[in-house]
């Protein structure tokens, strides 16, 4: 567990260093650490049980296994079903002039974020994903996407996607949301 936490903290610190101004560093670091503290409790393995239950049964009536009926992998980052968006709530920046991990021109990324854990169906790994908002213009209005895997009410702020994460920006006007891979959520 300690090794895992160390790894996560290293990833988080690197992410903060890459993304944040000095002014916002402390606030960001505090938020990421809050998320890290909650990690053992995140739904880091959601897929197999739920998916197996929804698969059609075999001819003898027994449950199918996931390997028998592979779900279609969505690779389009403009689709709400794209794997990185498992805990997003807002407009997809990839539909607004950005990409799944970059903001549209003329906007500013939020230095503070909420965190999700999403499984990449292509490699079966769980990834820590930081959901930064892009800020400074009114709502984009394209590709609304609301998914809430592991999302918690706002008293657990670091796992909440309802508060305005542009709140600490010079211009806190919310435009759209990106999903930035922080690293593999090691078990």
């Amino acid at each position, binding site marked *: 567990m300690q090794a895992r936490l160390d790894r996560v903290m290293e990833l988080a610190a690197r992410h903060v260093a890459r993304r944040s101004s000095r002014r916002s560093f402390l606030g960001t670091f505090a938020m990421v650490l809050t998320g890290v503290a909650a990690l053992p409790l995140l739904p880091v393995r959601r897929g197999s049980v739920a998916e197996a239950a929804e698969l059609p049964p075999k001819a003898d009536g027994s449950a199918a296994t996931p390997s028998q009926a592979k779900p279609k992998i969505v690779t389009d980052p403009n689709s709400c079903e794209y794997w990185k968006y498992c805990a997003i709530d807002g407009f997809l920046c990839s539909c607004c002039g950005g990409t799944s991990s970059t903001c549209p021109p003329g906007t500013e990324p939020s230095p503070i974020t909420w965190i999700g854990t999403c499984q990449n169906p292509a490699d079966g790994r769980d990834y820590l994903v930081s959901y930064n908002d892009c800020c400074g213009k009114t709502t984009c209005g394209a590709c609304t996407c609301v998914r809430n895997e592991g999302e918690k009410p706002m008293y657990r702020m670091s796992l909440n996607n309802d*508060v305005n994460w542009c709140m600490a920006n010079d211009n806190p006007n919310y435009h759209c949301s990106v999903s930035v891979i922080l690293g593999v959520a090691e078990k």
Partner: protein
Amino acid sequence: MRLARLAVVMAAWTALAAQGAPAKAPPPLAPEHIGVEKLPAKTPHWAYLLDVSWNNYIDERVYVYDGDAGRLLGMMDLGYYGNFAESPDGKTSALAATYWSRGGHGTRTEVVEWYDNQTLKPRGELVLGARRAQVGAITPFNLAYSADGRFLYSTNLTPATSVSVIDVARNAAVSEIDTDGCVQAIPSAVHRFTAICENGRLLTVTVDDSGHEAQRSVSDAFFDVDKDPVFVQSVPTPEGVDFVSFLGDVHGVDLTDNQVRFAPVWSLVSAKERGHWRPGGQQLLAYNAPLQRLYVLMHRGGPGSHKEAASEVWVFDAKAHKRLARWTVPTAEHGGGVAVLATRDDKPLLYVATDKSALLVLDAQSGRVLHTEEKLGQSLWYMQNP
């Protein structure tokens, strides 16, 4: 050119005359005079409908709606990430929001505007600090009057959390009280507010006559955020509030004393339904005190579906903890339910707003749909009683 035009007019006149004039023409319509409607007398069946204008968030608004007449009566501007509270005497609405000098950019102003509820015009304002909480889950507890109307509690989030206490008569923020990471300000008599904390406890702060903190206390934990968190969208009851958890447990909270008390937990769902039928949406709970009814937006879904729109409204006897009815939301026609509100009287209406921004007005005792607005605004996520 002029002759040609005259010829056209003459031809038209001749054609009209050929059709034959009616024997007796009706009297001409009287000239009209532009005016401004005055709001009729408010009834308990009115509601304030908050439209967050999801696709253009800087243009939120609050509609005033008469559920009996099925009629929009007027509107108030709300700005960005706004919150709404009506004063206990009903004369004023406080609307707190963000504005920029150039639409979505320029100089930022956080402000609470005081609207006159008879004219629906702002009659004053108080500029707030840039810390005002911008929160998507709209509840009565992001901005709330004290029971006597003396203070207005405005929540802050930076993401450090605090509550600004506004002395309404002085039109001044008189203090800012640190809530130690806990969120919301649920008011209770006479000058107290309660915030909900990550560790499952409630923080209650008593405010003195000058608007400053006099005392604080922390309750026992009443839920486990990791196992089954409660929605922050609790609903006011005569004793305090009812919280509902993601899996459908009801946690009644009594705020009538300095000491917070918790009622025995009861469930909205049977053992068989648990985990399959869940509460969800935006404003997912409504309560009517005279009939002791709790109304809950419910859907079929699994973990992570807590914001899913409802396919049914479940009706409970809130004292006997018994389900009385399941009413189907016409989802195919109007979308799923995202907000629900019961009026306060003993012959209540139930307002249901959908994710297609339709508004259904039901008889809250029978479930009969009395009136339907196919589309009112853009995104009705919160409603409040006068």
